[in-house]
């Protein structure tokens, strides 16, 4: 008889458990040990959402973005909200709908070994390094509230250092009275999860930041999201006691004592009911599927290929010595390149008559054919160079000039000679 009872209790519900698939919440109600503060009560009520602060052990921008994405896609935030804190080695992060060529000084970046990454959320371009703290607030979609999160940060800064900050109309955090920005913010709202992430500038290398994000006229026409540059400031400039480590701790404790649904401070005793801080080691073994997410984030197709359609138009003064006759002056070469999904779709090259004259540049067709279909990158320039060098024309100096113009256009280099 007892055996029948046990058999009846033995309900079978098979749950799909393939790796890399998000967890599926089972429909069968299993027995639960509930330790809610009401004695002997059963289910955990909505008012009891607990909080955790996760601290990433990685400094790699791609790994951290992949971790953020993994949590967004796989974690169940009902009754469990999470603040993810992370820091990166120097990197520039562009928004989902931005154009990296427009936003970033690619030559400066490659010179200093700074990575370019594209995040999943919209908004503008930011520069990260170890003096910068990244925060991601994870909640279910219905509890997403940016303002609350920013107020929490403000409170933490006051509580620990007496630092007064304000939230600007664009929902950035600025130092009171100075209107210098100390943070940038972006968000992703999906179903069932949402996140709001922002950065805090503590002791960022401002020189590098300026050079990396320095924008100049590059002849690019696009409807991609354009960053709005704002003057920035480090927290350590306002108060020298602020360090990234202390800030991490301060904001974490403030997060743990704040009510999950309002920005209300519930006091120190509230912290006791939370889950506290945890280090996170973002590897594929700890989080199956992470490597796949990371691979996508590092791919050229994602970082560069996802740019909205654009075209580049540059005009270049042809150096006098390349023009055949004395009377020809101020001749200009103009290039327009149409780029879609990071690939060259079409090229229009206007070669001035002086350059095209007898024994002049004759590789116009080669420019178009060798660039078309290539990635809008240094690779295309190399291919072009090779194609032109195979031409019978002995005028290598003219070929080199054309290649240089193409290179300048593609790599969006500063060119003093251009307008």
């Amino acid at each position, binding site marked *: 008889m007892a055996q029948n009872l046990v058999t009846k209790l033995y309900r079978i519900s098979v749950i*799909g458990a393939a790796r890399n698939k998000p967890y599926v919440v089972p429909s069968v109600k299993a027995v639960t040990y509930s*330790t809610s503060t009401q004695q002997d009560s059963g289910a955990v009520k909505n008012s009891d959402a*607990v909080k955790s602060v996760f601290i990433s052990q990685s400094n790699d921008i791609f790994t951290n973005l992949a971790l953020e994405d993994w949590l967004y896609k796989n974690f169940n935030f009902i009754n469990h909200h999470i603040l993810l804190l992370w820091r990166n080695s120097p990197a520039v992060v562009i928004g989902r709908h931005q154009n990296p060529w427009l936003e970033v000084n690619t030559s400066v970046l490659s010179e200093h070994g700074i990575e370019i990454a594209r995040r999943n959320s919209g908004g503008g371009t930011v520069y990260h390094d170890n003096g910068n703290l990244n925060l991601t607030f994870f909640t279910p979609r219905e509890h997403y509230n940016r303002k609350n999160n920013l107020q929490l940060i403000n409170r933490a800064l006051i509580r620990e250092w007496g630092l007064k900050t304000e939230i600007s109309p664009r929902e950035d955090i600025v130092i009171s009275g100075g209107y210098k920005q100390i943070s940038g913010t972006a968000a992703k709202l999906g179903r069932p999860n949402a996140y709001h992430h922002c950065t805090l500038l503590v002791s960022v290398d401002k020189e590098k930041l300026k050079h990396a994000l320095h924008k100049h006229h590059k002849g690019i026409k696009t409807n991609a999201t354009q960053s709005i540059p704002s003057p920035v400031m480090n927290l350590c400039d306002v108060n020298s006691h602020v360090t990234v480590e202390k800030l991490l701790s301060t904001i974490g404790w403030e997060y*743990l004592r704040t009510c999950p649904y309002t920005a209300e401070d519930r006091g120190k005793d509230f912290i006791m009911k939370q889950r506290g801080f945890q280090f996170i080691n973002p590897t594929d073994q700890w989080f199956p599927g992470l490597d796949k997410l990371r691979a996508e984030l590092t791919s050229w197709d994602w970082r560069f290929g996802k740019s909205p359609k654009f075209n580049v138009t540059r005009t270049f003064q042809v150096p006098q010595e390349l023009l055949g006759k004395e009377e020809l002056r101020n001749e200009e070469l103009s290039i327009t390149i149409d780029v879609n999904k990071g690939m060259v779709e079409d090229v229009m090259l206007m070669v001035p008559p002086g350059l095209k004259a007898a024994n002049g540049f004759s590789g116009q067709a080669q420019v178009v054919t060798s660039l078309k279909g290539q990635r809008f990158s240094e690779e295309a320039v190399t291919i072009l160079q090779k194609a032109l060098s195979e031409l019978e024309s002995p005028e290598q100096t003219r070929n080199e000039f054309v290649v240089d113009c193409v290179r300048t256009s593609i790599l969006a280099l500063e060119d003093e000679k251009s307008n």
Partner: protein
Amino acid sequence: MVSLTRLPRVLLRRKFLCRHVATHKVKPALSISNEVQNTFKFADLSVQLASPDQLQPKPEVADLQFGKYFTDHMLKILYHESLGGWQRPEIIPFENIVLHPAAKVLHYATELFEGMKAYRGVDGKIRIFRPEMNMERMNQTALRAGLPTFDGANLIKCLCRLISIDQEWVPHSESSSLYIRPTLIGIDPTLGVAACASAMLYTILCPVGAYFSGAGESAVSLLADPQFTRAWPGGCGDKKMGSNYAPTIHVQREALGQGLQQVLWLYGEDHLITEVGTMNIFMFCINESGEKELVTPPLDGLILPGITRASILQLSREWNEFRVSERSIPMAELVSLLSENRLLELFGAGTACVVSPIASISYKGEKLLIPTVEQKYPIYAKFRRTLTDIQYGHVSHPWAVTVDV
């Protein structure tokens, strides 16, 4: 959730289990109901969360060997008779323990521990496996060791809170678990062999990665040497006390020295097989009547009442596919079954690796080869599959309860 007080629950469970336990010779401890009056309460639990600088970085999953890494927090509950008994439980950042040099645990091994696991299920939730049974066993051992008893349900709730705080120490991949080690030590700062007026109950957690949860993947070789005895009648071999384990380390070293992996513990003139390493032992054979039979030594005082052991017996009786017996197994019987090709499988059962198939036994200078892994549809694998399905939430079962804090 209906809340039964402890005594009726204990009796109900005994009634439930006794139908299956044929030769339950151990006398149920009578005095537990009296001790329950003094217990700590989950409602009094205070939590002190570790700050970031107190956290340990997490290693690679491949490094997560059994017992090597510990989580960031621990549970600690003091007992002082002079202060009325059990004090308030607290969860604190992981720290070393400071003891008076005369503390009884250091001199007379007044110590007991438990071993259980929390599993990250396929739905991401954490489940613990039959914790009530560990609590009962822990209290039985406490009585024998002169240590204070307590209400198991309250400890389970405290453990759930601890597990939920440190649950990110369990990888999100399949087959990962958290090993839970509740420990009770006597800390009286006085020499003298007497019951403890002061004690400390604490619990620490170890993450176990997928690679090491299946320690019984390859079958093990055993040393069966009758000159060594692990437990004896009238002793405390059926209690999970630390003092039972220290003397086995030397014997284990002997086994390793002979190129073998574990020790098969024998008792008495008949060389009865009792346990293997730190696990219970099961034999699957074809008996005299030609039917398949699962045999395991009875709980007669020499055997630790394992929870995996009890679960296997319960499952077998449910399945009703073969005979199930709890009786003594002399080595002679084992040898004779083997010679008649009637010995099918021999395996250990325990929390760490669920089941551990046995390949050979070195006994009286001879190496007996056991065909455990050669069976086409081995029963040990079926037990492992069934239990892990329950533990990891592949199937819903009252034995695995979700920790929901």
